[in-house]
């Protein structure tokens, strides 16, 4: 056993850090470090910068234009990027539909879509959930009827993250309504500009617009947009969910947020002294920091096991649960750190409007705390993750 990174890995970390230092646009970086939203343009711009460097696909194999990095290098890259304040790369293309197309798509689909994901020419969104199908995803009802050279799609998807910016959606649709649950589902790639596709905003508790309903009314989707085989979509969906969870621990992001919490705690006062010198607060902060240390090692253990097995396993559920609990705890502590100063609320602040009150760092904290409740709900809720652990790991 050796818990240190090899000299080569350390050199790699250095390389990533200096690249970030040079190439990350300062305005974008500041927003991320301050906990504000980056614009879609900033996200696209960053992906394009990475792409020019040949790092557009950190988790992709070389043959598809990726970096070919092993899981440890991917982890180092994510950690350094998050710490430096790089925007989160859009997972929908890179981590979700991309790997599915590589594994199950045909060559035409690979050539058409993969380079455009790397270059940020397309913005993908994930069309799985429906009003009646959240945790029970296999019950999706959106119907795709084969009619000659196209499918006719009708139905409604919901909770679709950033669909308002997307030009493509990958959707789970029912192609065989007579088959039981998982059996009649197919995986379709749908151009959002096709007539009959409508996107409607859902406003969240922080008054932000990040999720949407997506409606399909007699939408004609060419049959060549079917991935793999008809009625085998569930297999692909499960493959994808595994990939979606591999970096869900969000170690790098939590380290960045921990650093923000420490900055805030040093500036806040309690009984006339810096808050970070208050024993009660320091202990709470340390407790989360220690949890994060443990999770980092657990994460590396899982990655190392994955590297040998070549596929994400059920341990990803553990990372998801603990990772989101830490994210939520950090956001809670930031609110607690500023106290009543967290209460004044202007949703425009998240999008860069200057806060009316001092200190500026307090302005986004309540919204972020509220917003991050989502992390234990999406990507397979934490209750569903526990069901996976009990079934797949504990064998109960």
């Amino acid at each position, binding site marked *: 056993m050796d818990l240190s990174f090899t000299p080569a890995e350390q050199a790699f970390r250095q390389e990533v850090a200096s690249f970030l230092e040079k190439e990350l646009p300062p305005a974008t970086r500041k927003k991320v470090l301050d906990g504000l939203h980056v614009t879609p343009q900033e996200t696209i711009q960053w992906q394009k910068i990475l792409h020019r460097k040949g790092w557009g696909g950190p988790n992709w194999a070389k043959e598809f234009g990726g970096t070919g990095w092993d899981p440890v290098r991917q982890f180092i890259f994510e950690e350094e990027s998050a710490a430096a304040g790089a925007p989160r790369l859009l997972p929908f293309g890179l981590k979700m539909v991309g790997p599915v197309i590589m594994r199950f798509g045909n060559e035409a689909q690979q050539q058409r879509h993969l380079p455009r994901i790397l270059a940020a020419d397309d913005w993908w969104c994930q069309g799985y*959930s429906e009003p009646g199908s959240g945790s029970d995803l296999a019950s999706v009802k959106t119907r795709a009827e084969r009619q000659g050279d196209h499918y006719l799609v009708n139905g409604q998807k919901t909770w679709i993250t950033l669909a308002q910016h997307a030009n493509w959606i990958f959707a789970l649709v029912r192609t065989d309504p007579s088959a039981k649950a998982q059996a009649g589902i197919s995986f379709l790639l749908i151009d959002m500009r096709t007539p009959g596709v409508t996107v409607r905003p859902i406003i969240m*508790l922080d008054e932000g617009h990040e999720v949407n309903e997506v409606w399909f009314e007699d939408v004609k989707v060419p049959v060549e947009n079917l991935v793999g085989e008809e009625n085998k979509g569930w297999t692909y969906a499960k493959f994808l969910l595994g990939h979606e969870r591999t970096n869900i621990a969000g170690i790098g992001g939590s380290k960045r947020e921990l650093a923000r919490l420490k900055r805030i705690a040093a500036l806040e006062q309690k009984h006339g002294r810096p808050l970070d010198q208050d024993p009660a607060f320091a202990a709470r902060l340390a407790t989360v920091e220690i949890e994060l240390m443990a999770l980092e090692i657990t994460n590396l253990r899982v990655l190392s096991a994955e590297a040998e097995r070549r596929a994400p396993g059920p341990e990803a559920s553990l990372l998801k649960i603990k990772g989101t609990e830490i994210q939520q705890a950090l956001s809670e502590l930031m*609110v607690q750190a500023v106290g009543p100063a967290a209460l004044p*609320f202007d949703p425009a602040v998240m999008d860069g409007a200057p806060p009316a009150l001092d200190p500026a760092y307090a302005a986004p904290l309540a919204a972020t705390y509220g917003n991050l409740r989502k992390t234990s*709900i999406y990507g397979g809720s934490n*209750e569903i993750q526990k069901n996976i652990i009990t079934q797949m790991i504990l064998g109960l």
Partner: protein
Amino acid sequence: MHFNLTAEQQLLSDTVGRFLAKAYAFEARHKIVKSPEGWSREIWAQLAEMGLLALQVPEAHGGMAPAVVETLLTMTALGKALVVEPYLASAVLGTALVRDLGTPAQAEALLPALAAGEKIVVPAHGERGSRHDLSRVATAAARDGKGWVLRGRKSVVIHGQAADVLVVSARTAGAVDAAAGISLFLVPRDSKGLTVTGYRTFDNQRAAEVVLDGVALPGDALLGPEGGAFPGLSAAFDLGLAAICAEAVGSLQAALDTTIEYTKTRKQFGVPIAKFQALQHRMADMLIHVEQARSMSFLAAMKAASADAGERRRAVSAAKVVVGQACRFVGQQAVQLHGGMGVTDELAVSHHFKRLMAIELSLGDTEHHLEQFVAAGAGRPA
């Protein structure tokens, strides 16, 4: 010992509940919080008409004080409906300060108007640097002939903009964190040098930043003893704490109720999600939190006016600790059990979540009241 309500108390509770169920339904509330002022003078007038603004006003001035149980029941009903009007700020805190510290003339000038809903009086006490410390006051008042001049800044003053009169705390002597040397002043909203900047809070209430830039006041603006306002201030805030704990209970119960209702109707995997034992146990834990909070809201109400300062401190701070923990657990789990629907703006549950979070931060957070409890128990001054 008993926990029974009198027939009149039960009637009051039912009447307020019925009124709010109609006048303050989710859509109606939405309209109110989106209105320019962010609260409704019409609702306020109706609360006055029902006698609710007179609960803390002494009989001599047309009120019903002490009305401990009535205040508790009213606050719980307001919490359930997520009422945003300045009830806690004015009808409890502001009223108690004037009542307990005012001269006969000050009382006569304000209390009948408070009871009638004609005047709003709110404390402007917290400052950026004070965090949760009640005795940390940097705003200063200097004598100027027979009068006073105030300088300083008050932060997150709940309903500061709605106030006709602010009760401003200012230091007339002593170190910045000393209990001795704090004085209170009645500052009319139109005073020269006073700037009140209102805004919305995360839980859709209203608050304000208050800047006092050389506000000149006459001698009779002093409320309570010069330099000796702290005991009265602390007593009023304990009454406020008991009230906010009762408000929390209403919101906690509503958050639990809506969660039970939702899980019974929401189906996944072919069954109502309430059938999953993991969720059943979660809701059982929520119920335990709600009931513990309810018990402590009773204790706080009964002890908030206790003459024994140590007993009062322990009871009220203990209540805020239990309530604060309940606010966090129940608020978060209510959202969680609603799944995606829980994080939208569309259902009442996220609004309870936000109010519960704000309650935890108000009038001293959980950690602050833990410290207060420990300090009181160790025989040190609270």
